[in-house]
């Protein structure tokens, strides 16, 4: 993705006409008393994992443009409004921010982007302010500037600029939201990312399943396969240029790699046996998968380019699934060797297999957080629930409580989980949902049809 260029703060200043005023803005003295404070306000910050703090009020007015110009993505003034909406929705959906209602927002003119009307915003109750601008460049690209202000302290906290082709204009909004989220929470970014999943429709007895890809907010949705064969369990390659998944093409359930650019797919392992549950290693060199031979399933790995698989487990029961730790040194997988489905961790070469789930009931679909600190899973009791535990076991917390929630996948920053929720009864419906690590923020992700088996991709390059 060389098309996406980051601009350092100073470069943005040179590029933006509004910049002339910028130098003065941070030097504004902080008349804390004027804001009715006895002392300087505490630093503006949001806690991701601390339970009860209220969402931070934040103002995100429409982003003005220096000149209304028509682009392939729409006119720049219209895009400026929509960019603010993207930032608003991302931050609101995180559950950590409470964006002001549109009626409370004032129209911001271009020079004001770097010289906010702090007195006005202070009266709205907003603690933080996000302003930005959009400009059409002579070369056809768009420049989007994004500025974060502390309303009480009347200071700029952060700024970034992005140059994007018109087709990627939404990404500039997600990047802006990521900047705000990162600066105010201290957590890593995750809004500029995509999800691959299985789009579903049709009767429960014969669901039609297609691979589909979309932005994490549901935009830019695209189907990748036509639904003639069952497809299951897609996962992004670390470089996001391909997707590994399982397909029943020709009634031979096996794992394939789909190249996003060309639309071509290739069989990974030439074998008569059932192969499934594929995942890339963090460095992209291997594909972890499961293979059933005569009723016995074990975990294997194979070079991503193909070749002879290497067997990693050899218990007589079902050993399957699996997920690499972010550093690639360990693998968490599921096994019924104890008599029921439980979670185990082993070294990447298959040695030192240790059970980590002991909470009663069964556990499946373990996925290692990209931060390395937690493992997400599906807990099977009467219902299916999404939970997390430490990689050594322990610290178990269940995050959802519905009839059947399955198949967690982590956001790039390891703070949000996407999963699918199935409906009880004859409809066969399932939908994509997200939940944060507190379990308090849960919402349905809009998809054109039903959805299952979501996999959240890394932050886009």
């Amino acid at each position, binding site marked *: 993705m060389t098309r996406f260029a980051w601009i350092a703060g100073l470069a943005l200043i040179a590029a933006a006409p509004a910049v002339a005023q910028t130098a003065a803005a941070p030097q504004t003295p902080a008349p804390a008393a004027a804001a009715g404070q006895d002392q300087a306000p505490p630093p503006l910050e949001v806690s991701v994992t601390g339970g009860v703090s209220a969402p931070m009020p934040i103002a995100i007015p429409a982003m003005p443009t220096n000149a209304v110009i028509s682009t392939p993505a729409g006119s720049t003034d219209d895009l400026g409004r929509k960019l603010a909406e993207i930032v608003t929705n991302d931050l609101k959906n995180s559950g950590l921010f409470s964006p002001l209602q549109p009626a409370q927002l004032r129209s911001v003119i271009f020079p004001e982007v770097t010289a906010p009307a702090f007195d006005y915003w202070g009266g709205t109750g907003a603690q933080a302010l996000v302003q930005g601008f959009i400009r059409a460049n002579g070369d056809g690209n768009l420049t989007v500037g994004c500025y974060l202000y502390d309303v009480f302290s009347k200071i700029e906290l952060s700024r970034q600029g992005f140059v994007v082709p018109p087709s990627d204009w939404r990404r500039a909004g997600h990047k802006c939201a990521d900047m705000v989220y990162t600066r105010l929470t201290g957590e890593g970014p995750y809004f500029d990312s995509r999800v691959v999943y299985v789009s579903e429709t049709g009767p*429960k007895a014969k669901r039609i399943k297609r691979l589909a890809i979309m932005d994490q907010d549901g935009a830019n949705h695209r189907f990748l396969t036509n639904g003639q064969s069952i497809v299951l369990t897609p996962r992004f390659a670390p470089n996001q240029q391909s997707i590994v998944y399982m397909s029943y093409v020709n009634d031979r359930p096996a794992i394939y790699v789909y190249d996003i650019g060309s639309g071509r797919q290739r069989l990974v392992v030439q074998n008569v046996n059932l192969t499934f549950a594929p995942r890339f290693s963090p460095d992209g060199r291997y594909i972890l998968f*499961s293979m059933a031979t*005569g*009723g016995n399933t074990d975990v294997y790995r194979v070079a991503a380019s193909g070749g002879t698989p290497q067997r990693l487990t050899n218990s007589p029961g*079902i050993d399957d699934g699996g997920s690499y730790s972010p550093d690639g040194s360990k693998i968490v997988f599921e096994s019924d060797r104890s008599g029921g489905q439980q979670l185990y961790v082993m070294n990447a070469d298959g040695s030192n297999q240790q059970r980590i789930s002991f909470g009663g009931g069964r556990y499946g*679909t373990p996925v290692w957080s990209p931060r390395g600190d937690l493992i997400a899973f599906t807990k099977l009791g009467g219902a299916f629930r999404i939970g997390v535990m430490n990689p050594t076991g322990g610290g178990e917390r269940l995050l959802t409580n519905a009839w*059947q929630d399955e198949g967690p996948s982590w956001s790039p920053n390891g703070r949000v989980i996407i999963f699918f929720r199935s409906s009880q009864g004859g409809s066969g419906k399932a939908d994509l949902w997200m939940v944060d690590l507190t379990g308090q923020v849960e919402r349905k992700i809009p998809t054109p049809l039903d959805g*299952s088996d979501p996999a959240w991709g890394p932050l886009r390059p």
Partner: protein
Amino acid sequence: MKLSTTLLAATALIAVAGCSKKRPETLPPAPMTDAAPGQVAPPATNPYGDAVVPGSDADFRRSVTSNTVNFDVDMYDIDPQARSILDSQAAWLTKFPNVRATIEGHCDERGTREYNLALGDRRANAAKNYLVARGVSPARLTTISYGKERPIAMGSDEAAYAQNRRAVTVVLN
């Protein structure tokens, strides 16, 4: 082991005989369980006097006790009822030694997707291994697991789950 193999073969023979009663020109008649004796007519095409081709999946499905065996929760062992069903399947397959079949393994919706793929493979192989023990060449049998992807009972209740935990033998024509 040798004794049990002989026993198995004998049982299979009996089953073959029982199944072949509809073709009195080649084998002695035997009492039917699924139709009155008077309904057996000397067939021009097949024992039913219709267009179903002997050796086809349609022929298989109406000739055997059932094309489906069921399993307990998270289990894959062949219980007595399943044995009886598979005996009838083995008999038919012995009668048509050139026919190939695939065995589908299925699960109810109370397992996770990938685990159910492995469990469905177990069930399909359990049925296959039984047929092989009954004398069907393993070269004639393939397996495929559908996990929980293809339920036949749509409810989310125990009765539906019990029907969906199954291995289905399908004759390939």
